[in-house]
């Protein structure tokens, strides 16, 4: 009976499953956070208005070109291939034997960064032009406009897409088993290799993946609602209370 085997495999190997799941979650979390930061920085750089002439124009053009190449390469090749090229490439080219976990953080981060910078750029472009103009009109420069006005709005707008990246990363870290990172897929493969119960072992893995992605999705929904801000506000002062009955509040 398969079901008995599933119970048996899990009770015998649960520390390995849980450790694998933990590493998967850790890689996905760190990769998404660093990737999002990369995306934010690149998004801000790529939206700097390019001056008509001078050194600054040449420099910006050059940086933008480099960033475009980065984005195209990492969006245009599979992460499984990137993992192999980077991990073994480092070993051959520089003689560096990367720590596998560090390599995993690195690969997932720059891969996510490439996607996130396009998401951030889209987020910045979706902000009403009037917000930029109002910020410029009171004398803010590009960086001040971004940090005080635009990015806070962008962050809220791109949260669903960022959560999506997180969920994708939880699943896609499984490809890192090719460089022997001991995440959930790799752990499951080892367990199944010992007991030869591939279906049962991977069934357990699939349930754990589903629990992780589902939980993360719920948490992000909650965060989105939080970031929407309160629906209500209280009037300061008391002039209005004279003619308007005040709605009871928790203050």
């Amino acid at each position, binding site marked *: 009976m398969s079901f008995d085997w599933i119970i048996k495999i899990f009770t015998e190997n649960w520390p390995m499953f849980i450790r694998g799941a933990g590493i998967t979650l850790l890689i996905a979390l760190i990769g998404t956070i660093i990737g999002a930061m990369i995306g934010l920085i690149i998004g801000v750089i790529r939206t700097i208005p390019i001056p008509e002439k001078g050194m600054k124009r040449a420099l910006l053009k050059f940086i933008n070109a480099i960033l475009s190449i980065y984005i195209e390469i990492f969006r245009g090749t599979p992460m499984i291939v990137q993992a192999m090229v980077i991990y073994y490439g480092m070993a051959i080219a520089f003689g560096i034997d990367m720590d596998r976990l560090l390599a995993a953080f690195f690969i997932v981060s720059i891969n996510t960064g490439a996607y996130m910078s396009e998401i951030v750029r889209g987020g910045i472009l979706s902000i*009403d032009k*009037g*917000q930029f*103009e*109002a*910020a*410029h*009109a*009171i*004398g*803010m*420069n590009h960086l*001040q406009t971004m940090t*005080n*006005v635009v990015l*806070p*709005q962008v962050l*809220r707008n791109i949260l669903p897409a960022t959560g999506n990246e997180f969920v994708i990363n939880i699943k896609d870290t499984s490809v890192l088993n090719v460089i022997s990172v001991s995440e959930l897929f790799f752990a499951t493969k080892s367990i199944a290799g010992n007991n030869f119960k591939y279906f049962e072992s991977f069934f357990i893995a699939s349930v754990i993946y589903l629990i992780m992605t589902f939980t993360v999705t719920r948490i992000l929904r909650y965060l989105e609602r939080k970031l929407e*801000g309160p629906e209500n*506000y*209280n*009037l*300061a*002062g008391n*002039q*209005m209370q004279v003619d308007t009955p005040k709605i009871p509040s928790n203050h």
Partner: protein
Amino acid sequence: METMITIQHLSKSFGTHEVLKDINFSVKKGEVVSIIGSSGSGKSTLLRCINLLEKPTGGEIIYKGENILDDKHNVNQYRTKLGMVFQQFNLFNNHDVLNNCMVGQVKVLKRSKEEAQKLAMKYLKVVGMDQYIHAKPKHLSGGQKQRVAIARALCMEPDVMLFDEPTSALDPEMVGEVLKVMKELAESGLTMLVVTHEMEFAREVSDRVVFMDKGVIAEEGTPEQIFNHPTQERTREFLKRTLKQNI
């Protein structure tokens, strides 16, 4: 009277389309100038050129004896001296009313939080929005948003206030509250440059009226001259059209 801003031979083209042609005029300290004209006559573009939201194609903008179109001139510092009020309000959506009035003071003028808050409250009181300091822009009506936007600009304590059709996006019943605030500001001696379709306002409040047509200043003078004794045929045409609509 001291001249605040002088504009000389200003021109602006979008591609091959010339929106402004050889504009010359100046604003003196304490003066309220209304710019009127039909849609597409270039009046908004002129205002946006003055604070460099649009980059003029040619000419000079002289502020305090300096041509601010020089490459070396600090645009951001110049802009803090001009308060801009937009047709679409453009309040910062991520900040509440109080912060909308404070963020520029703190981040750009480097004022302390306490000082910024004091000034913000002062000017929010002027526009009658001091009770709403904790409200977000999405909670406010159009008229309320525009009054906060005016307070936000005033908080920077600018030399000149620029109003770009401040009542055009408002429901008719809210136009009055915004015009009332603007009238009070004008009476307080603030230098104002107002692009408007509100002929009553232009006639009553301004010291000088500029009529623009097809990218040029067709006529300028006191409200009395422009509204009662226009010398140009196209001014008469425009006034006939707009004043008829108002009835």
